[in-house]
């Protein structure tokens, strides 16, 4: 789009409001950059504890994203395509954690999957497997809050998809599974990518559910957001640097992926923009 032309039709009050919105999002970042202890920054980042937390954050958030895709895409398909009684209820239930305070989610997970939880007690008794206060628990907590972002995005794309593409595939002799893999999935790929990035970003920043359900153990459950919060008490300078690291990683991924996955080529299908 031509920036000059779009600017000319953009009313001045809206421009001012948009500028305030941009400031609203950039000022906190500027504040952090301004207060950052640049001379010691390298030490804080390469500090063993910080690197451990960063590594754990990245591993857990990627796992959470993978689980969100594996379970979230079929769920989105179910919600978009299969008419069943109570579908609205199921959709609300499965996206509830988007609006729930994460701490509440963490507590709820505890009662479901904790050692005395309705499912957790059997995991413990039969398989000697415990989720709370483990790295796997972090992944579960992150998946719980992140998956709805993917489900909502993919469901919207499935609803918009021309059903006759799938019809065409069926008439050509393709089973429904072959149709899903070869026709549906490629057609919703941009939305799937957008949903996966949203879910990943949500998982990376996840704090409340993680600290409630998985605790705060360095090396096993202490992710970067948790160490930022902890450092605020003990070493505010380090907290700022770690916060900046978190911001830098997220920012880099959002910009990088957007260019590679979301910018449609000439004549490509309409892409879902992040």
């Amino acid at each position, binding site marked *: 789009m031509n920036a000059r032309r779009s600017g000319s039709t953009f009313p001045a009050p809206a421009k001012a409001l948009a500028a305030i919105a941009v400031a609203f999002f950039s000022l906190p970042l500027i504040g952090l950059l301004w207060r950052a202890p640049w001379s010691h920054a390298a030490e804080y980042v390469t500090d063993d504890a910080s690197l451990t937390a960063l590594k754990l954050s990245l591993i857990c958030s990627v796992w959470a994203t993978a689980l969100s895709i594996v379970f979230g895409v079929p769920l989105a398909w179910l919600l978009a395509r299969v008419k069943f009684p109570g579908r609205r209820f199921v959709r609300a239930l499965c996206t509830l954690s988007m609006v729930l305070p994460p701490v509440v989610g963490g507590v709820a997970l505890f009662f479901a999957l904790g050692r005395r939880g309705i499912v957790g007690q059997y995991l413990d008794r039969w398989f000697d497997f415990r989720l709370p206060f483990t790295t796997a628990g972090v992944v579960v907590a992150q998946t719980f809050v992140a998956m709805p972002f993917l489900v909502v995005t993919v469901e919207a794309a499935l609803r918009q998809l021309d059903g006759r*593409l799938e*019809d065409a595939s069926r008439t050509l002799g393709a089973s429904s599974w072959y149709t899903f893999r070869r026709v549906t999935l490629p057609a919703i790929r941009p939305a799937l990518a957008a949903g996966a990035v949203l879910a990943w970003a949500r998982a990376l920043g996840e704090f409340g559910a993680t600290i409630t359900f998985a605790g705060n153990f360095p090396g096993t459950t202490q992710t970067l957001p948790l160490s930022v919060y902890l450092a605020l008490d003990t070493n505010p300078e380090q907290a700022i640097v770690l916060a900046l690291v978190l911001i830098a990683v997220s920012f880099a991924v959002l910009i990088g992926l957007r260019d590679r996955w979301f910018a449609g080529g000439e004549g490509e299908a309409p892409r879902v923009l992040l």
Partner: protein
Amino acid sequence: MSLHAEITHRLGTLDLQVELDVQPGEVVALLGPNGSGKTTLLRCLAGLCPIDAGRIELNGVALDEPSSGTLRAPETREIGFVFQDYTLFRQMTVLENVAFGLRARGMRAAEARRMATAWIDRVGLMDYARQRPPALSGGQAQRVALARALVTSPSMLLLDEPLAALDAGTRATVRRDLRRHLATFDGVALLVTHDPVDAYALADRVAILDAGRIVQTGTLADVTAHPRSRYVADLVGVNLVAGDVLEGVLTTPAGVRVIVADAPAGPAFAVIRPHSIALNRDVDAHSSVRNSWVGTIAEVDRLGDRARVGIVGTLALTAEITTAALDALHLQLGDEINATVKATDIDVYPA
């Protein structure tokens, strides 16, 4: 390879009740107004809409028969379906699109590629085999869709408005190509269209579908010579009157009398050609061999040196007169007019 279909299917306001037989190698065009159920009928045959009652049988094998619980999924029917806007898979190349049906049926990649390439060659798109659909023109996309549907050698080919999305120039070329492919196709072919020109060029037989029923079937020449529905009459541009004939007079359900020359008694259709209708301002004239109906002019369309005049009144009619006559009569919208037709100029045939 023949098709026998008795279909009852309700979808929203559409109540489809159709009986249709198509012989091997025959091309049948389904013609009808929007919402008459043409596309739904194709979808029923393809298995995309299971029927409520009846039976669909292809080559003696039941595909869909609710009474016996038989329902074969679309992917297990030997069909080819060309959708209205082709529904090519955008993320695949032309070659992958055409090979899709073969691969979906489990054919090895090399063999599928060989067969798909042969078809791409047949439709003259070898230069585009590696292109993706967005790079194709409408006519090219149509040919890819056709090749994709035919590569699996279906027993039944279903085409939903195959030419509707094309501009006038491309249409003629694509129609000619399609005709060539249909001529060599030995299965059952059904073609949905709006355009009698397509039906004339491509089909051996037409079936007129109106409000979910087949109201007429036969060659296009037969059908247009003796319209049995308002739709066909409008298509051909004639006035159609339905009623009961008794002693040389056809009476419509509304009680309008049409004097007709020696026609057998019973329910009948009468065709009044627009150019057989004479218009004059003498609204009191009567005659025993001429029909005359008084009406009001509702519409005047000038087409070169002819003009079509729409009349509403006891009988809604369209008359065609010369523009010279139109000007001589000083006809204006809203004028009262006497429309007369000789009884011998009216075609009557049993309903």
